[in-house]
């Protein structure tokens, strides 16, 4: 069953894009909305925007069916949906000329010979990166700029047992939040329980942190993808190599709350095998962290490193499969940041050997 809503029916509803411009009346056709929401116009509006194909049209305004032939026309088929080559069919919402700062910090000593993490060195790396990211003399000044004592902070972690966010990093983040005055009861680290977690339900701020790895559906397990647990229906976002993951960041309990992104590149996983999508053969001690306010820029940087590692390891061009084009789409369609290298100010700190970028 479909409820048909024509633009005039939405005339009284404030439906705007991210820049505050009304878009409902600009949509020339009819919107088909699955189900009836007569008693809840806000819910109806929400479904139009985020749960319907019409919503995709509204969000991108000119979205059309994209096929392999679009890539063949632009001569980019080999990198279908890749980070560089994706044709930008949606409107780009990031301002031209702006760059996103990304800090890549590495320290060879962060892992000992047995691969065990040295927490004190990890904390040094985190502090060093924070100082550079925000151009502050000491790390706590940076944390103070991002978080206020009355903030309620959810730290979105990742518990995937083969390669979880290190507990030592979670602890370091919590320590710094407490140090700038955030109350312990207002801080929570969680992954799969975020929708039931009172801190996340009331969060005024989010920190997003996870290790980068190859992924069966999305090409890469990214910071963008780490928010999949904010929806009760993750499989809804699996279509076309998870290209619409950026939409997760528009969910009402998520939008505008992320203050910091930390992509863990200590032992990234660059090639998945089998049902577990993991093999210890395909991790390596890169010993790095990537930190940015812009999740797209952080992910795009990590993706370039993974791609370079694959090419090196396999001795030939070995594209990430499926292509992680959700990163570029998050920038082009959802306006979450920059994926192109010339829009990223990459600052490299520390260990330079085998940098791959």
């Amino acid at each position, binding site marked *: 069953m479909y409820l048909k809503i024509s633009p005039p029916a939405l005339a009284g509803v404030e439906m705007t894009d991210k820049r505050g411009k009304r878009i409902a009346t600009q949509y020339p056709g009819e919107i088909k909305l699955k189900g009836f929401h007569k008693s809840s116009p806000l819910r109806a509006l929400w479904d139009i925007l985020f749960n319907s194909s019409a919503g995709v049209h509204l969000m991108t305004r000119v979205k059309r*069916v994209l096929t392999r032939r679009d890539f063949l026309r632009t001569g980019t088929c080999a990198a279908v949906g890749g980070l560089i080559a994706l044709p930008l069919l949606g409107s780009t919402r990031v301002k031209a000329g702006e760059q996103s700062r990304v800090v890549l910090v590495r320290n060879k000593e962060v892992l000992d010979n047995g691969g065990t993490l040295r927490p004190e060195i990890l904390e040094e790396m985190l502090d060093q990166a924070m100082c550079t990211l925000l151009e502050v003399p000491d790390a706590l000044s940076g944390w103070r700029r991002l978080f206020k004592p009355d903030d309620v902070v959810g730290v979105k972690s990742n518990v995937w047992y083969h390669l979880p966010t290190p507990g030592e990093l979670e602890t370091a983040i919590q320590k710094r939040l407490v140090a700038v005055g955030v109350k312990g009861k207002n801080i929570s680290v969680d992954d799969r329980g975020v929708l039931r977690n009172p801190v996340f339900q009331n969060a005024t701020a989010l920190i997003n942190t996870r290790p980068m790895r190859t992924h069966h559906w999305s090409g890469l397990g990214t910071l963008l993808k780490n928010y999949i647990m904010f929806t009760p229906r993750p499989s809804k976002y699996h279509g076309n190599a998870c290209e619409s993951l950026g939409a997760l960041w528009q969910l009402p309990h998520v939008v505008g709350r992320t203050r910091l992104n930390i992509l863990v590149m200590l032992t990234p996983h660059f090639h998945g095998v089998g049902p577990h*999508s993991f093999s210890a053969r395909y991790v390596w001690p890169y010993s790095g962290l990537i930190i940015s306010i812009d999740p797209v820029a952080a992910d795009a940087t990590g993706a370039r490193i993974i791609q370079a590692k694959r090419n090196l390891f396999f001795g030939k061009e070995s594209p990430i499969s499926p292509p992680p084009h959700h990163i570029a789409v998050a920038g082009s369609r959802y306006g979450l940041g920059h994926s192109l290298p010339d829009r990223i100010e990459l600052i490299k700190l520390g260990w330079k050997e085998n940098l791959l970028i």
Partner: protein
Amino acid sequence: MFSSAFAATFESFGEALPEKVMGWTKTGEDQVYDNRTIFEYINGAAEVYRAYGMKGCFSRRYALPEGTGIILDIFDMGSSQEAFGVFTHDLDGDPLDLGQDALYRAGWLRFWKDRFFISITIEQEAQTADQVARELGKAVSSLIASDGRRPQILSCLPSEGLESASIRFFHDSNLLNTHYYLSDENILHLNSRTDAALASYTDSRGSAQVLLVQYPDGEKASLAHKDFLNYYLPDADARGFALLENKKWSAVSLNGELLAVVLEADTRPLAEWLLNEIMETASKSR
């Protein structure tokens, strides 16, 4: 070395499989997952198995005293067609003589037999790990008494020039895009009720890729045919042929519930020959 008693259930696998193989010992309890709890076990990769209608998964871990492990997963896919399909999801590796088809790539052995897909993953390199993986594979295979049938749609693939190791079977548009990116929309209307096969061809006329889709009825097949022409081959001639931007030929044809697509062929004669062969076979089998 192992019992050859028939075991068709997870319980009987658990009872009949060895607890120790060449110094590798079973660790922890065997685990069984259904198509919902499988997410807890293998995370997002579970979608692949669910896309093939997975019924359940039996899992056992073997380990050396120092902790290095091998994971044995036995997926009950409900039918031999689905077991074959999930096997074809990843075709990278060297063939092995095990089950009905088997492949081995560094750290991962897998095969299918009857309705089961078996995956043996080596967590970390160890001297005897490869050999243990093969022994375990043999043990599981010996416990599955009979072979299963491959999907019927494969019989419509012309045999001449067919690269048999390239055949994939699936139902889902996401899986099609994983193997051959076609479109961000499901323009072929693939779903759990459609059977699809993708295969590569090479002969003296060049190479080509073929996609076959069997729909539950002619109406759905016609709709897919129409949408494919609209969205993918709007410039096709009256016979459904178009020259792509990369100078390869694509073509589509419909026969009842069967849609045949030549995705890319080096030459038009090759594309024509493939479609003719497919349609002839389809007509005979109707």
